[in-house]
């Protein structure tokens, strides 16, 4: 973030500390607006989730919580199968992360470092996967999954989610590796490192935060994907697919409770990996 952080008016090395107070005020106002922009809709879902049966139909609504009720939330968590679905979600998302990094990162590296025949064909293939609505592939996929016994397993779901996450992994890692100067690696070769050593010692540490970000994408894509997960499973539903089924026909306050439950893990997960996101930052401002 150097480039932008050095936009301060004075050619002074202690840049950020010289922001005039008016600008700082503006900055914080803007920041507060952005934070509110992100948080306010989530707050309203939470209000709906805890507002009880009549809360969602009140008019006019108050932006302050009133007669909080934990009943819908508790009832929701007591629904049988929620825990099982949660485990399925973790298994599917975890496998998706592993597969998409293992398959995507080498491809991203190849695209960034080499020019080879078929490069554009490969790029096209990767893009095709994102350019085609996966939902429509559900029928042929279901047939082959039943045949090979992958139907109704989190493993099978993770395979499809990897198809979804792979282009992200390949494209993001490609731009990541492109951003790491080739000269670093070449210097390592000069000093006698093999290609692999040069990659592991020089490139990988620089790329790690970006790879972490890629892993987050993959996890989140799998966690949130509903359509393939609900077509390819019956009993071993992922949490999102399981909730979707229940939510579709529940009263509104249940739906807010379910929506809130869907938001919480992603908030926590992003909180858990924020160190990596911050590490992304750290490299820049070192």
């Amino acid at each position, binding site marked *: 973030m150097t480039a932008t952080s050095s936009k301060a008016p004075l050619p002074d090395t202690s840049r950020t500390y010289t922001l005039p107070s008016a600008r700082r005020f503006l900055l914080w106002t803007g920041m507060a607006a952005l934070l509110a922009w992100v948080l306010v809709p989530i707050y309203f879902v939470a209000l709906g989730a805890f507002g009880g049966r009549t809360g969602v*139909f009140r008019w006019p609504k108050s932006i302050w919580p009133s007669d909080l009720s934990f009943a819908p939330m508790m009832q929701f968590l007591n629904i049988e199968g929620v825990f099982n679905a949660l485990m399925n979600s973790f298994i599917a998302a975890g496998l998706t992360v592993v597969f998409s990094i293992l398959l995507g990162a080498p491809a991203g590296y190849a695209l960034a470092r080499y020019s080879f025949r078929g490069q554009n064909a490969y790029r096209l293939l990767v893009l095709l996967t994102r350019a085609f609505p996966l939902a429509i592939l559900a029928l042929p996929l279901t*047939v082959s999954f039943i045949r090979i016994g992958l139907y109704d397993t989190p493993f099978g779901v993770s395979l499809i989610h990897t198809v979804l996450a792979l282009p992200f992994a390949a494209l993001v890692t490609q731009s990541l590796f492109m951003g790491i100067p080739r000269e670093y690696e070449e210097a390592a070769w000069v000093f006698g490192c093999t290609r692999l050593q040069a990659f592991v010692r020089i490139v990988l540490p620089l790329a790690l935060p970006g790879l972490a970000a890629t892993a987050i994408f993959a996890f989140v894509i799998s966690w949130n994907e509903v359509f393939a997960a609900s077509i390819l499973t019956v009993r*071993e539903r992922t949490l999102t697919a399981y909730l979707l089924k229940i939510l579709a026909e529940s009263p509104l306050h249940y739906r807010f409770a379910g929506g809130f439950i869907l938001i919480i893990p992603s908030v926590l997960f992003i909180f858990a990996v924020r160190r990596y996101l911050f590490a992304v930052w750290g490299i820049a401002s070192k």
Partner: protein
Amino acid sequence: MTHPVSRRAIAMAAAAFLGSFAAAQAQETVFYSTQLRPIEEASKVRDVLLKGIPGKVTYIVDEPPAFAVRMKAETQAGKRTVDVVGALHGELQPHVPADLQPIDDLVAKVADRGIPANLMDLGKLGTGQQQYIPWMQATYVMVASKQALQYLPAGADVNTLTYEQLLQWAKNVADKTGQRRLGFPAGPTGLMSRFFQGYFYPSFTGGVVTTFKSADAEAGWNTMKELWAVSNPNSTNYNFMQEPLMAGEVWIAWDHIARVKEALTTQPDQFVAFPAPAGPKGRGYMPVIAGLAIPKDAPNRTGAVAVIEHMTKPETQLLTAAEVGFFPVVKADLPPNLPPGVKLLAGAVAATQGAKDALVSLLPVGLGAKGGEFNKVYTDAFQRIVLRNEPVKGVLESQAKTLEALMKDTNAPCWAPDKPSQGACPVQ
């Protein structure tokens, strides 16, 4: 512990994964349903309605689209995991003959249940053999908030309402309260197409297919435009009318009984339920039938037969009405101790069936997988005429062409209230 099903499900999946199907088959019947999906109703099926069947029955539910995909996919893969399916008449139709097996042997077994012959005939789905056994029935009713009753036009009675009176009533409400408060479930998963096929067309034209572009139909669509002018513009977002009713956004609504039930059971003192209005040709109404069928190559046919026999017993049928609000297909008197909301619904259903001018409109028969496109003919006509304000005559002419092609394609004969036809039902 409340997790027996999920644990069993894990065991089943593990067993399936290892390829040891036989062990699982011997113990378990998989009952796969598109009905009674909401969590509370599904647990009632598991804990109450399925009690008393020998052997384990696993009740799993899915939305209709997922149901259709799964049924097709299992057939194509040649590997069936489901033993018995429960779904609406229209949802089972696309799966004949590819995915369902004829169950003529069951007709004799349930003969003593007293299922009316016309219902049993519906179960043939237009073929020569029994495809499903009727399971439960429902229909559509009107529900109004008690606040709306004061605006009823003079001399109107909700139980013998006409479309003219409904229009006047909704106009009064809109004029007096400043809000358009008539509501239709015209959202993406709403059942608006059934309104046109089972209520609007029969009431105004006395037919559904043959009268599609008649002069009566034109007059009807003009009334529909007027109705729309006093309907809540959010109607095209509504899938279930219970929510806008409870929110007070809508005061007068038409919908399937299962989709207004929540409003009536939570606030039975706030609402009234009554039959749909009558038009010049009578009071069109459409009974909805859910049926039980056995997929081709079901691994546990014996278990499936046991489930069907159990679910059609009169005592199970009464229990179904009391617990989940779907009505019996057998002749049985409803118990007096129904919950107040269900009682309101039962009253409206009885008033509909008993109305002097009642005009039964059956579910489409013989359309096979084209049922969805049949619905589209009516909803597209609605979109173009009412929402996009295209000239009525032109729209009906062009939609009639699609309808005619569809009928020729499927060779579906006419069904009530259209007069029986030789060959494909003609559009006159």
